[in-house]
């Protein structure tokens, strides 16, 4: 795919669609034949919630008239746990928040700690961080692209996704030693340098991943059934998306041009590469999925560019053996695979943080569920949830 590809807009009349959805939800259906509604518990044990999210929906026939997400079945108390850990130990915890893109969880926390300590990682470490960040984005979103098929009944794409994600996980493993939970980021740099031959291998894998994206685009996105299931469904206008605090691909799919990789200057290598931030004016489920597909492609290009220009040198700055973070407060957020992920770190000058507030993307992203599910049918509940794309660990922390 080339860069000239434009978002294929179908119906930008978003306001009208959301008006219809609201009308359908508010109207008393079956006025003459007074029927009884049905309350359906989707979850906590349900194949569509990939985890333990519970969504309580009130149904009239198959139409949803009221929906409420119930989070917290997987709450692990990471914010509290950080208070009894030292700074370097926290990365092992936050790895488990978004478990599909683990490395991306470590970066904002480490950056916040570095900000408090007023040190900066050497350039090579910054570049490798950015590469691994994008690799975890690819690992995360490629699984989404496969899982999307399963939610809509196509069982083949998910195996392709698992097959090609494996290459990325192997790369992450060979670089960091951990497939899912690398725990590789250190205050002041990285644990180790890249292994020999890693760069060439990564370039080959990126080619494979681009092929995978084309494959998924042909198999799913070009499919009429797929389009008819997602187009015009679950429309979130830009204003509503902003009000509910959506971030990441969900926000960009509503036409808001907002990407923290580009919009803020962190000690990461994003300003050294040339990449496009995709937006889509529709704001429907299809737009959200399409944006993620394009972002996976874009991420492979970012990795390619970074690999070409990776500087030499040390991967670790000079930091004391025992890390004590000076007193202060810092907020750092990055554009994670699921959306904006931020850490508000308060330090009292001890070995560990005094308090850490984690802003994870999925928690905000599913807060729109009651709004967006009104008036849709049960099959659309599943496709909308799939397109919003949440990871349970990212909701419950």
């Amino acid at each position, binding site marked *: 795919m080339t860069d000239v590809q434009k978002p294929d807009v179908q119906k930008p009349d978003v306001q009208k669609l959301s008006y219809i959805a609201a009308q359908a939800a508010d109207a008393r259906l079956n006025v003459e034949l007074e029927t009884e509604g049905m309350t359906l518990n989707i979850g906590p044990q349900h194949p*569509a919630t990939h985890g333990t999210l519970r969504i309580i929906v009130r149904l009239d026939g198959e139409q949803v008239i009221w929906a409420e997400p119930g989070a917290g079945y997987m709450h692990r108390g990471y914010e509290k746990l950080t208070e009894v850990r030292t700074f370097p130990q926290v990365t092992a915890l936050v790895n488990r928040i978004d478990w599909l893109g683990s490395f991306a969880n470590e970066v904002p926390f480490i950056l916040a700690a570095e900000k408090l300590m007023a040190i900066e990682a050497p350039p090579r470490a910054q570049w490798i961080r950015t590469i691994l960040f994008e690799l975890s984005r690819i690992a995360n979103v490629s699984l989404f692209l496969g899982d999307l098929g399963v939610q*809509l009944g*196509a069982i083949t794409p998910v195996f392709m996704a698992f097959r090609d994600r494996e290459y990325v996980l192997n790369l992450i493993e060979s670089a960091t030693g951990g497939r899912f939970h690398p725990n590789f980021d250190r205050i002041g740099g990285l644990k180790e340098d890249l292994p020999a031959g890693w760069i060439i291998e990564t370039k080959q894998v990126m080619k494979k991943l681009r092929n995978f994206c084309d494959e998924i685009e042909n198999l799913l996105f070009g499919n009429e*059934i*797929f389009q008819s299931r997602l187009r015009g469904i679950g429309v979130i206008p830009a204003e509503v998306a902003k009000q509910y605090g959506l971030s990441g691909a969900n926000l960009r799919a509503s036409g808001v041009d907002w990407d923290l990789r580009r919009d803020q200057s962190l000690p990461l290598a994003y300003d050294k590469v040339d990449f496009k931030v995709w937006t889509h004016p529709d704001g429907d489920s299809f737009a959200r999925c399409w944006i993620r597909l394009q972002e996976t492609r874009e991420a492979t290009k970012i990795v390619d560019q970074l690999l070409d220009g990776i500087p030499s040198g040390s991967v670790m700055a000079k930091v004391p053996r025992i890390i004590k973070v000076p007193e202060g407060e810092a907020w750092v957020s990055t554009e994670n695979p699921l959306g904006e992920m931020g850490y508000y770190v308060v330090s009292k000058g001890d070995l560990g943080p005094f308090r850490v507030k984690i802003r994870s993307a999925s928690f905000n992203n599913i807060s729109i569920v009651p709004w967006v599910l009104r008036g849709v049918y*049960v*099959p659309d509940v599943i496709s909308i949830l799939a397109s919003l794309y949440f990871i349970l660990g990212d909701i419950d922390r």
Partner: protein
Amino acid sequence: MMPFAILGADLPYWTQSLLRVLGGAVAVLLPAGTIVYLFLFKMMSFMQSRLGPMEAGPYGSMQLFAEVGKWLQKEDISPTRADKRVFRLAPLVVLMSTFLLVAVVPFGPDAYFTDFDAGVFYMLAVSSISTLGILMAGWSSANKYSLLGGLRAAGQLIAYELPMVLSVIGVVIQAGTMNLQQIVVKQNSDSIFGWNGLGFPYILTQGVGFLIFMIAVQAELTQTPFDMPIAESELVSGYMTEYSGFRFLIFFIAEFATAGVFALIASVLFLGGWGVPFAWFDWAPVGGGEIDNWMNVGGPLIMFTKMMVLTGIIMWVRFSYPRFREDQLQRFAWKVLIPVSLINIMITAILKVAF
């Protein structure tokens, strides 16, 4: 007619009946097992870049026996609040529909279970019995997901019954008979403008009908893209949610056996059934003799081959497509398939009168 003349003897009625029952069981269960192994286990796995079962038997070919053994050992659970009698009966009703369907399929000049003139009519009638079983299962399970699945199934199967009937009418008009055996004979003894090297399989003139029939079959089988009633990502498993052990096995067998039987019927109606073009052997339409005997052996094999090809297509679609939404598939049936099949009937009737 002399059923089972292949055995070279006139058998007493009870022996014939017994043989028919055994033959029916073989004709339903053997293809079902083959389909499950070949397509569900292996083709699907190869499509998804994996090997599928490899441990039980050579290349995992005994896997199905292992699975059946597992299911047989499981406890027969029925929910506390279920309507127990209906709950237990439902899978049997679904399987019964399959057995009744295979009864009219001819496998050779004399190799058939029954041969009666309203064959097509009977086939369409009994195929909808499975709807009843699915509704029973959905309603009696006392589960909201099952109920939704059962109701979806009822709506869908009734909607797709109609295009199926209408697509078959074209064949009936062209053949001038509802007897499936006669339809096979007609297809193989007719000629295309005097050239009889290929017989005259009705797919040539009823291509649209064949397409609609296969789509309707896909929907009747509740296979993807029409698997809303099962929809495992939404309704857990639809009307089958509460079933376990042997009763689930029966649903499972019925699903694949029905796929095979519908493929048999499609090959009878559109692809020339058990026959090879009779002109190849200078053979007058069915009337005894040596060739008849040979065809009694070869016919089932030809049918089996055609069935496997058609089932392969059904499964191929199943493993690669996402599913329709309920309202979309209803719209597809009523606004596309039914008008097209009505036009098909009209054109067929006009051409029938013209030629």
